[in-house]
């Protein structure tokens, strides 16, 4: 027994690098010929890594708890600076707890990635949204309450959107097909590669404005409410509150955009970087399919300026069995940067063709007059097709026909997601069939206010 103990102590001293040279040789000899000594060494090694593992899990639980408390503290501080009140989401505590459990299981059961600081939290989401982390980890299943470190968020379909909240209470909503990268090292930075977003930014620390990068512009934001639409060739910025400094990347020209003003920064550096007062909304709009198309296949008509947009497939839904949408989506502001207001008298007229019978869903994406995502509205119509060559489609839809796509959201947050599109601004228009390609082609969309 005494021998066993002294052998074990010798091995422990070896593991502690506390042996004389001659003792090292003794340990090597012991391990070479004595299976019991090797068994003890293996035992110690297993116990050492397991102790460390158990302690790591405890540490992670502690830091999750601290992060939650820290998050709440930062948010309260920012709100008190603003002197205002904000909607509190009822699911918040449960969502945070659920997210913490999911994060814990993922980190313990899977490969235990090193902790990265969390930058934003998902407060609401709908439709297909995907996040790719800094290490290239793709997460298709995101949940309300998930906290995310830096990475890229993709809102994948015309009817998807996501609300994010930074630790200081600043919020960003991305909707439609949008791709943005979020980071927060020295200051908040957001790269909107394509798509649209609305943001309410809390006052930022002196000298550290939030930076928003698009393919054609850099925006410096100190505290404001704004809307941005960006693609490879232009950026449309509309400021509702506060002031934003815009740098056009094509030539480095700079403009300050105050509240109620807007600017378009395109790749064309010959055009003036003109800051204009936000125009009064119009109540009529007519599509320019070749320019406005966000999704669909453009079919030009030879010898005619009018072509058509045919539905193109889009996989939708990541959580359950995905469905295929055959979708056409149009931007309302791409050809004319003028807000389009939906009124109670307004009618939407849609013309096109359909090749086979089926249900067609017509949808609107809206935002509030002062900016901010206001939800999606949808109406369904069934079409019969008698002729083998297909049928012309010509329908008129009143806004009383549209219902909120997510009724639950309207019930929970009626001010943010009204139950009617009347009084809201039209952001984009879309129509689709589900799982069946009905050969739907759109030739004309018009709003008569």
């Amino acid at each position: 027994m005494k021998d066993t103990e002294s052998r074990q102590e010798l091995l422990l001293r070896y593991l502690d690098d506390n042996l004389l040279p001659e003792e090292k040789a003794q340990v090597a000899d012991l391990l070479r010929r004595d299976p019991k000594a090797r068994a003890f060494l293996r035992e110690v090694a297993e116990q050492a890594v397991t102790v460390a593992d158990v302690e790591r899990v405890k540490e992670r639980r502690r830091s999750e708890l601290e992060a939650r408390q820290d998050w709440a503290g930062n948010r309260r501080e920012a709100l008190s600076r603003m002197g205002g009140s904000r909607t509190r989401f009822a699911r918040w505590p449960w969502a945070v707890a659920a997210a913490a459990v999911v994060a814990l299981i993922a980190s313990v059961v899977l490969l235990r990635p090193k902790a990265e600081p969390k930058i934003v939290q998902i407060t609401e989401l709908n439709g297909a949204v995907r996040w790719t982390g800094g290490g290239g980890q793709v997460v298709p299943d995101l949940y309300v309450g998930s906290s995310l470190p830096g990475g890229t968020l993709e809102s994948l379909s015309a009817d998807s959107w996501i609300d994010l909240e930074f630790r200081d209470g600043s919020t960003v909503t991305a909707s439609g097909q949008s791709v943005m990268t979020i980071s927060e090292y020295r200051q908040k930075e957001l790269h909107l590669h394509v798509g649209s977003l609305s943001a309410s930014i809390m006052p930022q620390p002196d000298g550290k404005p939030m930076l928003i990068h698009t393919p054609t512009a850099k925006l410096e934001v100190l505290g404001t409410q704004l809307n941005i639409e960006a693609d490879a060739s232009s950026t449309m910025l509309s400021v509702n509150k506060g002031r934003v400094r815009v740098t056009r990347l094509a030539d480095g020209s700079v403009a300050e955009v105050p509240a109620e003003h807007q600017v378009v920064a395109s790749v064309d550096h010959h055009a003036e970087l003109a800051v204009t007062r936000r125009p009064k909304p119009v109540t009529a709009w007519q599509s320019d399919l070749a320019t406005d198309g966000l999704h669909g296949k453009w079919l030009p008509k030879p010898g005619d300026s009018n072509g058509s947009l045919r539905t193109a497939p889009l996989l939708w839904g990541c959580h359950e069995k995905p469905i295929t949408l055959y979708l056409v989506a149009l931007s309302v502001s791409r050809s004319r940067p003028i807000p389009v207001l939906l009124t109670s008298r307004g009618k939407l007229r849609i013309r096109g063709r359909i090749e086979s019978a089926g249900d067609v869903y017509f949808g609107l994406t809206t935002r509030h007059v002062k900016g901010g995502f206001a939800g999606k509205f949808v109406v369904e119509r069934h079409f019969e097709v008698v002729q083998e060559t297909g049928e012309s489609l010509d329908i008129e839809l009143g806004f009383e026909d549209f219902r909120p796509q997510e009724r639950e959201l309207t019930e929970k947050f009626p001010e943010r997601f009204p139950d009617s599109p009347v009084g809201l601004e039209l952001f984009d228009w879309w129509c689709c069939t589900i799982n069946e390609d009905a050969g739907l082609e759109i030739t004309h969309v018009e709003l008569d206010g």
Partner: protein
Amino acid sequence: MSGFVPVNRYTFRMTISEQDILRTLMKSRDRIAAAAWVVVRDAHAAEDIFQNVALKALTKEVSFESEGAVLSWAFITARREGIDWLRRHHKESTGLDSEILELLEQEWLCETARRGEARMEALRACLKELSEKSSRLLRLRYFEGNSCGEVAKKLGTGLSAVYKRLSRLHQGLKECIELRLDESRETES
């Protein structure tokens, strides 16, 4: 799940899928990390080494024909990664020659995955039963990575007392694991 990969133009051999590779590695995770720990004697580095091994197993071009081949490759890779880690961190080698390290790996490999998993489960349960004093000693030594001399200072005790307490603790945990395994075998039978 299995897949086929071409060996040459005319023959194909059975390989195990990425999911099976990962499952095999995860079942033996503690043993692979422990093997790395014997080389580096740093529990966090050992965990990093296990993660690197898992990533390499999933991204390497050579395929595996059996779970045994995965494990054998994993232990060897963990050892090499451990030696690289020592070099990168300018630390002295363990002094154990490759013959001893191979013997230890062989013994780990001979233990079935099922038995290994049961042992680890029992070990976690035994760790929960430790007194706060014993847990603190293990935490200071293996989680915080203190030398036994540093542990002795923090606990206000002598170095040889720390070796003695550690020796008894490891032995006690070993006996606790065996007792739990015996009990579960009796329940099963």
